[in-house]
């Protein structure tokens, strides 16, 4: 590589220009959401002595693991500048597909698991191809897929819950491994793999670039369509995994499961500071977003707040988190 050096003739050190650069990584804006999460936990510990016990913490983590996996999936899509509204339906479809191959004494465990995830990946590929090659807005495509996947789930299961599942399959959602519920372990695994992909691999970097400025990404030689396709396949594939966990936990492939789950997942992503405009966000933020929703649901349950109020409080927190983010960004 040849080195050509610019003579910095105008390298008149201008303090002003440098100082004008806003610190985009101020502590408050970067860690505000973590501080908020800690504050909520402390408040709930004071209000309910049961809150901060190992047993309750495991309950919370197990409760959030499904929403967590969905939220991490949709984080890929949102950072890439898209949206996926079909998650809840994909979760139901993959659940019934997996369950129908999980009856006792039929197939090895690997079959329903792989088929469930594969179903998700295929749906993601259809979403991604329609969005990139068909040039249809992600909102529209995934809104359509939301009903299509729900319909497919009902068709596949004949509208009836798929029951009588093998113990091996039920272990995924209901079992413990080293005293830790399996869904939590899967959630942690998904967190680690996703964080590595987004932060340490080329495709991860390209996802940020495509979401930040699609045209600049294209001009930099990035296959924009391929990157988007990957994000949608990742997202729906993870929805497939979540569908398997849910079906296993309730020991039923339920075609009506997961209605409006996509909204909770997107809410967690937004609370975690990922921009709906794309190009900005993190897995860590999404995890905190998921935990905040989970902790609040759990804490309000412990405090015997009725579910009606819980919904109001959750909404206030979603808006509040974004408000906080905006204030810090200014």
């Amino acid at each position, binding site marked *: *590589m*040849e*080195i*050509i*050096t*610019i*003579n*910095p*003739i*105008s*390298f*008149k050190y*201008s303090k*002003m*220009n*440098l*100082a*004008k*650069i*806003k*610190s*985009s*990584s101020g502590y408050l804006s970067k860690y505000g959401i973590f501080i908020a999460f800690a504050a909520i936990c402390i408040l709930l510990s004071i209000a309910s002595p049961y809150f901060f016990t190992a047993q309750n913490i495991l309950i919370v983590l197990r409760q959030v693991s499904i929403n967590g996996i969905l939220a991490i999936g949709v984080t890929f899509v949102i950072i890439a500048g898209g949206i996926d509204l079909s998650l809840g339906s994909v979760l139901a479809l993959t659940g019934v597909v997996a369950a129908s191959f999980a009856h006792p004494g039929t197939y090895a465990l690997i079959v329903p698991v792989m088929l469930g995830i594969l179903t998700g990946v295929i749906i993601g590929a259809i979403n991604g191809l329609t969005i990139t090659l068909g040039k249809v807005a992600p909102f529209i495509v995934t809104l359509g897929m939301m009903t299509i996947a729900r319909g497919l789930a009902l068709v596949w299961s004949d509208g009836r819950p798929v029951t009588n599942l093998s113990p091996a399959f039920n272990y995924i959602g209901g079992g413990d491994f080293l005293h830790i519920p399996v869904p939590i372990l899967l959630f942690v695994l998904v967190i680690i793999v996703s964080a590595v992909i987004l932060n*340490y*691999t*080329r*495709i991860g*970097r*390209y996802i*940020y*670039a495509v979401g*930040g*400025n699609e*045209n*600049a*990404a*294209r*001009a*930099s*030689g*990035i*296959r924009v369509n391929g990157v988007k396709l990957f994000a949608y396949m990742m997202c729906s594939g993870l929805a497939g995994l979540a569908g398997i966990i849910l079906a296993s936990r309730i020991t039923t492939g339920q075609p009506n499961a997961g209605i409006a789950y996509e909204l909770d997942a997107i809410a967690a992503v937004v609370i975690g500071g990922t*921009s709906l405009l794309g*190009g*900005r966000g993190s897995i860590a933020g999404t995890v905190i977003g998921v935990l905040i929703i989970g902790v609040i649901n759990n804490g309000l349950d412990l405090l015997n707040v009725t579910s009606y109020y819980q919904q109001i409080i959750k909404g206030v927190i979603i808006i509040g988190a974004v408000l906080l983010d905006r204030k810090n960004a200014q």
Partner: protein
Amino acid sequence: MNPAYLLRAENISKSFPGVKALDNVQLHVEKGKVHAVMGENGAGKSTLMKILIGMYAPDAGQIIYKEQPIAFKSVHDALKAGFSMIHQELLPFPELSVAENIFMGNEPTTIIPGWINRKKRNGDAQLLVDQLGLQINVTRRMKTLSIAEMQMVEIAKALSNKAALIIMDEPTSAISDRETAVLFDMIRDLKQQGIAIIYISHKMDEILGIADTISVMRDGKYIATHPVGAINKEGLISLIVGRELNTIFEKRNIIPGAVALSVKDLTGAKFRDISFSVRRGEILGIAGLMGAGRTEIVNAIFGLDRLYKGTIAVKGKPVTIRSPKDAIRYGIGLITEDRKSTGLVLSATVKHNITLAALKSCCNGPFIEMQKERGIAEQQMQRFAIKTPSVNQVVNFLSGGNQQKIVLAKVLLNDPDIIILDEPTRGIDIGAKTEIYRLMNGLAAKGKAIIMISSELPEILGMSDRILVVHNGMIKAELNGAEATQEKIMQYAMM
């Protein structure tokens, strides 16, 4: 005090967290005069203008308008008082009609409150547009207008607000010379009507041609004000940069080598039958008016736009380029026309932008090697004298000149042999421009083939060994760099 001053801004200071953007600045604007404000990017011009139109409140100082102190609380207040600003990047409502754009926020109503009197609105708008000598039907949608026409509509809007002061922020940065001439005629008309104009531009010749008074700012400070006849170009440049500047174009003595890129009969949506070649060590200038098809030609060569027919050969071998990825593989680099829309990921850091097009070279398999990437980014940062506190700075907050250098650093990281620069110095200050010219000369000296599109004739003449003049999607002339003149180029560009 001279009562002829329409507006006096006195001792204005403004700080943002960690920086003093304006330090005791003054500006005195006379009625019916064009007052140019010059300064490098980051000198504080925009901040001062934003204070004048009520977008920011000053920390200290006073604005005196018609001998009354004023303090606008919002842009709306400023508009009502007769202050209008035509922004560099226009903000029209593309789907609405010209008339709706002109009267946005100020619609004539009928007796029923809130009910728009369409007939009066369209009639008044047409009257304003006609007065400005524009041939535009005001029921046309805004998006069907050219950028120059949109600018004129903005002026019509300012007039509809009974503006006494119009601020124009780099109004000619995106329009052709002919359109600039029309704009200047209009500005002279506005002066006749007693309207004061604050005119911000980097273009020296333009300012010397249209302004009555020139104020210079540097690093947030007021430097000087001179009547236009009392100062020459060199004097102005030294006020702006705070130092003497020798001729910014250096003479090169390069014997062009083998043909690096040749194209034949390229035809696309906005150009046809384009054939030319460029040799190693040569700088080929492409001149022409805005919209002549220059950008479309290079975008098609780079695989960004579709090519209907024609052949491209790199180093004598015919190649098929379907995407920028292919072009990069064949050793072509494109610095795109608009760094914000196609050059940079503004939300990403300096480091991530620099390595974006060459990320593979920082990778081990699919994984990015963080140390290596940081090292490469820092090396590019020094090589291109990018001024940023760290490679982890988000590029959105950097000046135009630094952003442009980041685009260069990104494209050149792939070490392309054929480098295409589309308006490489638009909207950047003279210091950064000089650096980019030196870089281009250095690259040519290393045997790179360079193609430069520019709308600035001095730049084309100063840098190019050969010049193609494009008009209406076709090459109208090929001129030798030594014998070309501004007049010759314009003659071909406009025929």
